[in-house]
């Protein structure tokens, strides 16, 4: 078929955007679960949960969006990643279920409240770790033959993916703590300021380990970054600048900037990762173009997207607006 535009690039942008939306939005509410066991007291836990309660549902829909969008635009990713990460995906889903149920039941339970506390913390941790391991597995690449995954059940679980898994746990916790700075006040906010600095150190540490480790996992990455100076070096520099902003805004006790800067940190790290692997979507063998669905399918979906997504973003923003402001003693 005659193809007036290369839709593959546009779709790479849309899917990339959806994944980033998911990471940022579900990231801060998964972060609440990760921070949960360390919260100063039970009342703070109530506030933490309430601060994300009306929105986490919509946040998680971006995950479904990413899954369905990949099936629509880059089916090879869907049909290689999911079998390859079979056990990991199960753990992530089980984590998300327990966590969702904990949201629902914690406030109802009195004598059994502690069970739902653990379900919320444990579910969030497991789901986040599994997502981080997926990122690591992507960097590692997959054993494929003729567009089909041929590796084993635990190929994805290596020291490298364990580090990326733990790294994402620290990262989501940072998103969570800076979200709390923005949405709370008083003692809990002060606690969040303190935790943020510690998490920042942790995240930078993992950042350093991964940066040193990655080129050894994948020679292509080494080639790309160290073969002369290139424009992509701006990305880690911007990420470091975001980290500095987090530090300085926390020191100045600013309320919104830490969260925004953390989003920046995530964004530039993510773009850096994409720059390392571009144009491979199912490394080491298949590029974006190999993984893409048929031109007419991408076109059909794109027309709908262009029309519907502005409305979607509009009413999501509206629902955030309705529940705006500081969370006080459970009120919105």
């Amino acid at each position, binding site marked *: 078929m005659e193809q007036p535009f290369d839709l593959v690039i546009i779709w790479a942008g849309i899917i990339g955007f959806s994944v980033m939306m998911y990471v940022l939005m579900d990231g801060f509410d998964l972060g609440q679960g990760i921070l949960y066991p360390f919260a100063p007291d039970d009342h703070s836990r109530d506030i933490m949960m309430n601060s994300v309660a009306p929105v986490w549902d919509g946040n998680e829909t971006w995950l479904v*969006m990413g899954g369905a969008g990949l099936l629509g635009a880059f089916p090879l990713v869907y049909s290689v990643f999911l079998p390859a990460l079979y056990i990991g995906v*199960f753990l992530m889903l089980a984590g998300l279920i327990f966590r969702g149920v904990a949201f*629902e039941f914690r406030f109802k339970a009195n004598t059994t409240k502690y069970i739902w506390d653990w379900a919320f913390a444990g579910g969030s941790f497991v789901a986040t770790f599994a997502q981080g391991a997926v990122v690591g597995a992507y960097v590692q690449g997959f054993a494929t033959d003729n567009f089909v995954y041929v590796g084993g059940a635990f190929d994805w679980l290596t020291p490298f993916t364990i580090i990326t898994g733990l790294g994402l746990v620290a990262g989501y916790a940072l998103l969570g703590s800076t979200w709390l700075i923005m949405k709370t006040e008083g003692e809990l906010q002060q606690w969040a300021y303190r935790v943020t600095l510690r998490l920042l150190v942790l995240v930078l540490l993992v950042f350093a380990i991964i940066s040193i480790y990655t080129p050894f996992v994948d020679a292509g990455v080494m080639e790309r970054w160290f073969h002369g100076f290139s424009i992509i070096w701006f990305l880690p520099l911007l990420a470091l600048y975001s980290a500095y902003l987090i530090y300085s805004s926390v020191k100045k006790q600013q309320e919104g900037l830490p969260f925004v800067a953390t989003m920046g940190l995530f964004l530039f790290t993510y773009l850096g990762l994409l720059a390392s692997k571009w144009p491979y979507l199912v490394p080491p063998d298949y590029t974006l173009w190999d993984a893409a669905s048929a031109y007419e399918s991408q076109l059909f979906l794109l027309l709908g997207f262009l029309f519907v997504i502005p409305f*979607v973003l509009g*009413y999501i923003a509206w629902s955030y607006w309705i529940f705006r402001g500081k969370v006080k003693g*459970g009120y919105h």
Partner: protein
Amino acid sequence: MELDPLLLSRIQFAFVVCFHAIFPVFTIGLASFIAVLEALSLKTGNPLWQRLSKFWIQVFAVVFGMGVVSGIVMSFQFGTNWSNFSYATANFLGPVLSYEVITAFFLEAAFLGVLLFGRDKVPQGVHLFAAMMVALGTFISSFWILSANSLMQTPDGLVLRDGLYYVASWTDAIFNPSFGYRFLHMALASFLTASFVVAGVSAWFIMQKRELAANKKALSISLWLILILAPAQVVVGDFHGLNTLKHQPMKVAAMEGNWETGTGVPLLLFALPDQENQQNLFEIKIPKLASFILTHDWDGEVPGLNEVAPEMQPPVFIVFWAFRVMVAMGMLMVLFGLAGLWLRRGDRYLESKPFLNGLRVMSLSPFIAVLSGWIVTETGRAPWLIYEQMTHAQGLTPSLTGGMALFTLIGYVLVYAMVFSAGVFYLMSVFRGGLETANAEQTDSDVEKAQRPISAANANLDGGL
């Protein structure tokens, strides 16, 4: 013994999808019911409508929450266990599922928050609008997902090239031959489900003499709905069956338990299909009736299972009996609709103990009918994943081992067992709390609790304080 990943994956898929299906059929109908209650409340200003709405929104919140959690699992099942199928059909399935997300799921998720927690934050009209958007979202969602499923039953508008499907016509593919029937049948099933649950719960309240004025209104509305919808479902089901006869004759042969193609085929009321020997045991039959129902001619020809080799036949016993259970439920529903009409004279339907007790039991009937209906549809398609084009075995994930499949199957069963029992337990306490608790003045601590779908219900899970 070698673990069979195919069998285990089929059991797993059937388990997770049946578990998911229970919740949407109820929420689709209930969402519309709530929107109607909100509209009546806004229009008449009668506080009873709002009392009812507040109560049913709490029930809705619990069921919807479980639907979301189990639905997220579903969207990954295609890739984990059926990756060859997903990859081959992605050009169609991918866009359709993506449309479902952007047109339905986001709509539901965003307006749900406002519906559940926004009553005091937005004007009443906006709140009604949110209720309508949630109801609309559930319908759009079933539109897309049923289109995807119908395509697997009656593929159309696709061309196969090098093992991949390409869409030749989007309208043919989306509005494939069985889609319209399935959508209507499912929409009626959802309305019937909500009607029977509302009727059963209201009957229970009335027997306890609680909130009589409001619950009588709810019971009356649901009985009128049942009176119209139940016979309509029988008619639509009949057309659905005729369409199936045209496109999937072996499924109908299994539903009828008919082993040999013939004319003047009897309708079997009871039989034990014996697939090994390709015959039925203990038949009780009405002569020629199957021919008449299916061809509208007493001597019409009806296809039999002998037209294909035994290994290409669906599991007859399951299809045969699941179909009978569904139809029996449908007939019972019609009966209750008529009984309700009969008892209206002198308002006896509010007094009759046997009738009210019957309604309580009948609130389970739509769930039984829906699950058996899906079992007919899906098992009757076997061994095909895409009818006459791709078998279950061809669609399976190649790298999947029996051990992996067994591990996740056990995992899902355990997780769902816990989630489901907690959910049912909680729903029961919402019912026990009734309209009174749902409308009680909220204290500070209630507001604190009421920030999530299930926690929007003002009842205590484990009874403690």
